């Protein structure tokens, strides 16, 4: 690991002013950043430890809804009564990620901004546009079995590994970000970006900006949800494909559906075509299959990951059947 200086931030404004220095990075739980520093994929000159900032509260908002501080640990959010009761899809997605030990340390902000698990990105002896812009993307023609089938570009075919973010995409969460220029709330759909020509940027959070919280609106009453994760072993593995679905039906007819997919794109992939195909249709297997087909018809599999198209299609239909059972 390369040398760096370390400081513990006392408050949010202190953290932000310290982060103005080029080469500075925030350290939250460290479960991704420390790993990437060992690999020398991340080479910060300065670490600003934000894990003790007063951002570890989960607040129930007056009008319903929840505000989750950025340094809340993944396991604490999954265990919180209001999440288990009101946002079970989020609890399930959190519990599907990593392992008990990692969830005890990993924070919400760090989970959102964790980096891709593309094998070339993690290996500094290889080219990679995400790690070294302009050096090329060996994954496109190389090992890409677990990479994207939606929204990739010729410059990058990586996927984002977070399970939690997939549930947050279906929940249409907001992300509070504070920087030297002020604060803003981003809809999660605008947090993640497609790789396009500049895959070195995973998200629209600028260097030096701090995520302070995630906001969840109150869910429509009667909506049901589930998170399904398909992986190469039963537990403690990243998703090949995952599905977060939130559906509200009335008398056997689907009124609203929000579906997001994980493991298939540069960020959580909102399955808008499937959602559209469900609206006002009878809640039946045929409708679910048709909706899944509609989404996957637009997939762009790479040479070796066509199996994910079938997997995603089946995972969507099964998840919808489970949610609407």
């Amino acid at each position, binding site marked *: 690991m390369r040398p760096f200086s370390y400081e513990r931030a006392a408050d949010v404004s202190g953290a932000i002013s310290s982060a103005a220095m080029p080469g500075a990075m925030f350290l939250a739980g460290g479960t991704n950043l420390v790993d990437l520093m060992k690999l020398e994929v991340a080479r910060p000159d300065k670490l600003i430890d934000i894990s003790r900032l007063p951002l570890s509260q989960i607040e129930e908002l007056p009008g319903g809804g929840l505000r989750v501080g950025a340094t809340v640990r993944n396991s604490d959010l999954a265990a919180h009564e209001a999440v*288990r009761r009101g946002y079970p899809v989020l*609890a399930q997605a959190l519990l599907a990620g990593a392992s*008990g*030990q990692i969830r*005890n340390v990993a924070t919400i902000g760090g989970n959102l901004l964790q980096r891709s698990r593309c094998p070339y990105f993690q290996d500094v002896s290889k080219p990679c546009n995400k790690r070294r812009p302009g050096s090329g993307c060996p994954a496109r023609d190389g090992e890409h079995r677990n990479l994207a089938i939606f929204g990739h570009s010729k410059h990058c075919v990586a996927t984002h590994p977070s399970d939690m973010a997939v549930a947050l995409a279906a929940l249409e969460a907001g992300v509070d970000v504070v920087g030297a220029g002020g604060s803003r709330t981003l809809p999660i759909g605008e947090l993640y970006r497609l790789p396009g020509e500049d895959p070195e940027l995973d998200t629209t959070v600028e260097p030096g900006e701090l995520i302070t919280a995630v906001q969840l609106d109150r869910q429509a009453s009667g909506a049901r949800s589930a998170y399904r994760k398909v992986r190469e072993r039963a537990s403690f593995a990243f998703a090949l494909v995952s599905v977060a679905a939130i559906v509200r039906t009335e008398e056997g007819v689907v009124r609203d559906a929000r579906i997001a997919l994980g493991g298939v794109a540069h960020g959580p992939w909102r399955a808008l075509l499937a959602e559209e195909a469900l609206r006002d249709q009878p809640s039946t297997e045929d409708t679910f299959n048709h909706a899944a087909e509609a989404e996957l018809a637009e997939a762009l599999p790479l040479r070796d990951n066509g199996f994910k198209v079938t997997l995603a299609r089946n995972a969507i239909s099964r998840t919808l059947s489970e949610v609407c059972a």
Partner: protein
Amino acid sequence: MASLELTVNGDRLGLEIDVRTTLLDLLREHLDLTGSKKGCDHGQCGACTVLIDGRRAKACLVLAITLDGAEVTTIEGLADNGQLHALQAAFIEHDAFQCGYCTPGQICSAVGMLAEARAGLPSYVTEDLLAAPDPADEHEIRERMSGNLCRCAAYVNIVAAIAEVASGAIAEDAE
């Protein structure tokens, strides 16, 4: 170098460390506590699992300097006055290892895991997120312990050892 105050297995220590030192390297290389093992050094195997302020964590992914003021318990700190912790005793009784390399991490992880399950924390396989999970259920144990790999595949006996303690069949006076 930076200074760090840490309580390890009940001993309060004042340390001077390089800020790059992980908790695992601090324990093994500086404090001569080699019970916690380095399997992968990347969070993937669980051999380095310890308890930080009572919660299980992977020591290889934590920079020690971030823990100023914390309490760490390692496998060396689980026994009480020479009496093994119930999980240590159960691992021996059930022959829950072959080479033993993963064992300290398995046991520390199981201590933290049982505390989580008994406090009612759900897991990915808990059917009803609002009901109290059964800590002695085999599926629950397998899911909750999935962050600890065993290259000798002693899983069957590891699960049996943990299930016995979880079900209360062995008294846990060592905790």
